[in-house]
């Protein structure tokens, strides 16, 4: 039986990696997904014939043995499908944050269950298993509450702004250190149940405290980091249960989250250390004051002016940001592009890595609006082309198009790679109001002589532009 289980797990691991490879290109991605789904079927198959379950099957009926598995599996599938089929694409970051919470909770619960079985009931647990369960519960709990906080912030249930309190970083790091000490102590003496449950409870608190100070614009880093933690929790589960497919899948997930958080922090010009210690998302009031000398005026453009500029352009680059997601403006962006392209205008899209609230957020939204992915350009691909472009159309983006990042060392986003929207012959910025962006700083782009601003909800404005042009 063990041979069969391991063979099935081996096939599952192979299919997971092969499936992941499919994701390296858009046209092979769906095939990769099918391979991974197949891998999951093998992994589940290998598990329902696990020796411990089989041992129970010999003493009880099929229904008795599998009742909990079947019940929760069907309810879970129904919930999973309902959420995934109904949630709008604009809310994808919330969906991902929530799923990390579920993943973390599952890992933590398996850890506690395993501790209960081996230590509390059977009365013995070796040190290595204890350490593995410790890490499992630590990462699982941290991911669970941290992701719930991220979900709360993204969905607006909790204020998206940074919540701060005195000695925040010091107390957080102290508590993290304390949890780690508990982990070491409980590994030395697994029989101390009080220590174990204290160690299991601490990460739940830490998850909340770590994510509370982080503002909405930094969510891409938080989500990717939690993704990585969820993977590490799964991997630790594998160590606790001597289950290789779990170790492998968890390691892959951990690596993926790690890569993405490095990409995100680079795109925000933050060091990885800065990210790990949660000391990010702070707004420096002085920077805000220094970024732009006061008294400058912006040029406002009516919908008609904007439509005129666009209709006269030979080439347009759209720079989408989180505002496009909030306004649900992706479909009308697509309609506008269709009209412009019918006129012979070249329309492309410049996607900044941290535009939106998670990696790839803008790509998914624009793909939903039936925009071919071949016109979605990454920052490095398109940034040199702005200077030969007639119009840069900024839809709900702010910090990612702020030229201060290029030449104003006093700015808090100085050094962050930004889209060269300021270099286009003219620039139209669609904006709800003159409120500064999430980094809390004024955007020099808005005051540039070749920039015009059209105020209002991006979707309304673009709908009117489309009407004016058609």
């Amino acid at each position, binding site marked *: 039986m063990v041979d069969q289980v391991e063979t099935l797990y081996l096939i599952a691991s192979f299919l997971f990696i092969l499936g992941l490879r499919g994701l390296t290109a858009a046209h092979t991605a769906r095939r990769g997904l099918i391979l991974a789904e197949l891998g999951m079927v093998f*992994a589940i198959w290998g598990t329902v014939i696990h020796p411990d379950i089989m041992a129970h099957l010999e003493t*009880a009926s099929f229904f008795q043995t599998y009742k909990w598995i079947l019940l929760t599996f069907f309810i879970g599938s129904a919930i999973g499908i309902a959420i995934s089929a109904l949630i709008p694409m604009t809310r994808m970051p919330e969906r991902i944050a929530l799923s990390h919470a579920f*993943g973390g*909770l599952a890992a933590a619960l398996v850890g506690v269950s395993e501790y209960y079985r081996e230590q509390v009931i059977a009365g013995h647990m070796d040190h290595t298993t204890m350490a593995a369960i410790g890490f499992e519960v630590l990462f699982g709990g941290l991911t669970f509450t941290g992701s719930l906080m991220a979900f709360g912030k993204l969905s607006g249930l909790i204020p998206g702004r940074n919540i701060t309190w005195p000695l925040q970083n010091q107390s957080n790091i102290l508590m993290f250190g304390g949890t780690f000490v508990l982990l070491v102590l409980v590994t030395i003496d697994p029989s101390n149940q009080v220590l174990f449950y204290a160690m299991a409870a601490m990460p739940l608190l830490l998850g909340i405290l770590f994510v509370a100070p982080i503002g909405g614009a930094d969510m891409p880093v938080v989500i990717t980091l939690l993704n990585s933690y969820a993977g590490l929790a799964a991997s630790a589960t594998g160590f606790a249960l001597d289950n290789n497919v779990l170790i492998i899948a968890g390691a892959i997930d951990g690596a*993926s989250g790690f890569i993405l958080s490095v990409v995100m922090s680079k795109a925000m010009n933050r060091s990885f250390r800065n990210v790990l210690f949660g000391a990010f998302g702070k707004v420096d009031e002085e920077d805000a004051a220094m970024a732009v000398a006061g008294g400058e005026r912006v040029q406002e453009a009516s919908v008609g002016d904007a439509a005129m500029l666009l209709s006269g352009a030979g080439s347009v680059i759209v720079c989408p940001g989180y505002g496009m997601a909030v306004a649900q403006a992706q479909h009308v962006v697509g309609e506008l592009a269709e009209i412009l392209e019918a006129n012979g205008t070249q329309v492309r899209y410049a996607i900044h890595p941290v535009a939106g609230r998670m*990696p790839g957020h803008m790509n998914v939204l624009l793909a939903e609006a039936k925009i071919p992915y071949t016109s979605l350009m990454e920052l490095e691909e398109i940034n040199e082309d702005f200077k030969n472009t007639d119009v840069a159309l900024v839809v709900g983006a702010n910090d990612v198009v702020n030229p201060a990042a290029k030449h104003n060392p006093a700015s808090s986003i100085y050094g962050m790679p930004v889209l060269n929207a300021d270099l286009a012959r003219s620039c139209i910025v669609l904006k709800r109001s003159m409120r500064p962006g999430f980094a809390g700083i004024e955007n020099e782009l808005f005051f540039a002589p070749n920039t015009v601003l059209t105020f209002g909800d991006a979707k309304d404005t673009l709908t009117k532009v489309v009407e004016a042009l058609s």
Partner: protein
Amino acid sequence: MLEIFLGLYIFMLAAFVGYGVIKGVPALLHTPLMAFTNAISGISLVGSLVAAGAHYNNVSTVLGAIAVLCATINVVGGFWITDRMLRMFKKQEPKADAAGDA
């Protein structure tokens, strides 16, 4: 002692393979990638299934059953939503049609 080292070797190699493969995923597909790896890490389902099905004791069974619920939401939901996203990614065709109409 040997077993834990075997596990660590597997972890290390899998992390490197994961790193190497995922490095090649374009930014275009980063959101589907997150949903995808999320579904795969729902593999902790495997651990919860044993806890829920082996009937070691009531506490383990209940905790395991809740864990199966959470993990299934991730596995099934994660694959479902990845597919929903990937189906939206289209190549140039629609654009060529629009230009042809003009």
